[in-house]
């Protein structure tokens, strides 16, 4: 499974959705994921890819990790995974 699909799977699970219902342009809010859900999704991403995600829940918009849409999350995770190898 690609990084993109794994991230979508994690987000789908958090939003209690089918993977097919998670579009790249959606925001986490669109998918019904609240602030606790965001923190839990990031934890799941860190565990899945064995990476450290730079994210502070106090200032999500200022964190290096861009969570403004599913696409930005996928791309941020791809970058982190690439940096790691």
């Amino acid at each position: 499974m690609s990084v993109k699909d794994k991230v979508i799977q994690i987000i789908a699970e958090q939003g209690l959705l089918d993977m097919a219902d998670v579009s790249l342009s959606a925001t986490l809010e669109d998918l019904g994921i609240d602030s606790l859900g965001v923190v839990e999704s990031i934890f799941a991403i860190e565990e899945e890819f064995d990476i450290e995600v730079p994210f502070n829940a106090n200032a999500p918009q200022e964190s290096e990790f861009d969570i403004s849409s599913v696409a930005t999350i996928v791309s941020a995770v791809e970058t982190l995974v690439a940096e790691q190898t």
Partner: protein
Amino acid sequence: MNRVVITGAGTINALGRSVPETLQAMREGQLGIGPLQMRDLDRLSVKIGGQIKNFDPEAYFDRQKLALYDRVTQLTLLASREAITQSGLEITEELSEATGLVLGTAAGGMNTWDDNFRSVYEEGKNRVHPFVVPKLMTNAAASHVSMAHNIKGPSLTVSTACASSNHAIGLAFQMVRSGMAQVMLAGGADAMLTFGGIKAWEGLRVMSKTACRPFSANRSGMVQGEGAGVFVLETYEGAKARGAEILAELIGFSMTSDAGDIVMPNQQGAVRAIRGALRDARLDPQDIGYINAHGTGTAANDKTECAAVTEAFGAHAQALMMSSTKSMHGHLIGGAGAVELLACLMALRDGVIAPTIGYEHPDSECALDVVPNISRQAKVTATLSNAFAFGGMNAVLVLKAI
């Protein structure tokens, strides 16, 4: 109903090992937060805290006692001793049964849990010290205070996360007011600066790695502290009769629940608690000169708290002062409200308003007078102390000068 006054105060926290030391540090805007000293620090991403440095328990307690005292019990006992000494109260056999205590703690004997989990899980030991249970139980600190000072009336521990101390002080206040007890010790403590304790907080991603900057636009989250605060509450008549020095009068208390979110604060829950406390105190909003804020330095708390104060106080919100001393001593979790009440006592007695330090940039969503960085001289006659806990449990106290 009895009038209830505070006649003793005691504390130990990152700013000082007594009330005078702590108040002086608050007056000077000192920073008690610094690099943590603990094992496995390299495995933590949060490496700062309001830790009580170079604390040697053996300087205060004998080894036999220490086998039963978790760090939270040690801190509570020291604060209680100071409070009782200052009050000049002699708990005679007669008074003993009319004296009780309510203490708040979120985690109780966290260090004992942490150490013993390590030994059975990490080190693979199959045996732990026989006193682990009585040492870690959440009511251990309260029990040891009752034993140390011969307190035989109603004694209990309350646990409402970050509002534990305010709930404890509020309940004790009601018990003296109603005549259920003549004297109550009240306050709270926490000592959660353990490897496991910090790891747990890291997980929530609301901890700052640099500083606690409440109400500042560039805030980066909360910083954990540790310590204890304990007060002696008694009837006004009793205090007068024995010629005690009265530090302040407790005149109002309110508690509400958000019935909302397990971590996010709620403006309406906070507003209801503030209004309820003012009603209980029979005060109008404009009577309050200073608020000791919950002020954790998280975006969620600070914005919600400022909006709640603005709603509850109306135009007067712009006239009153509100500061968060967590910027100096960190968030003492269950001990927070007790140590923070000291800032209210200082405001009422000394006319000194403790600052919010670390304040750098104004935030339009926190546009109140937060007494940035430098303490201020001001005459105030009544103060409020806010505590809004995880789980949506809110407790607000009102104090009046005497």
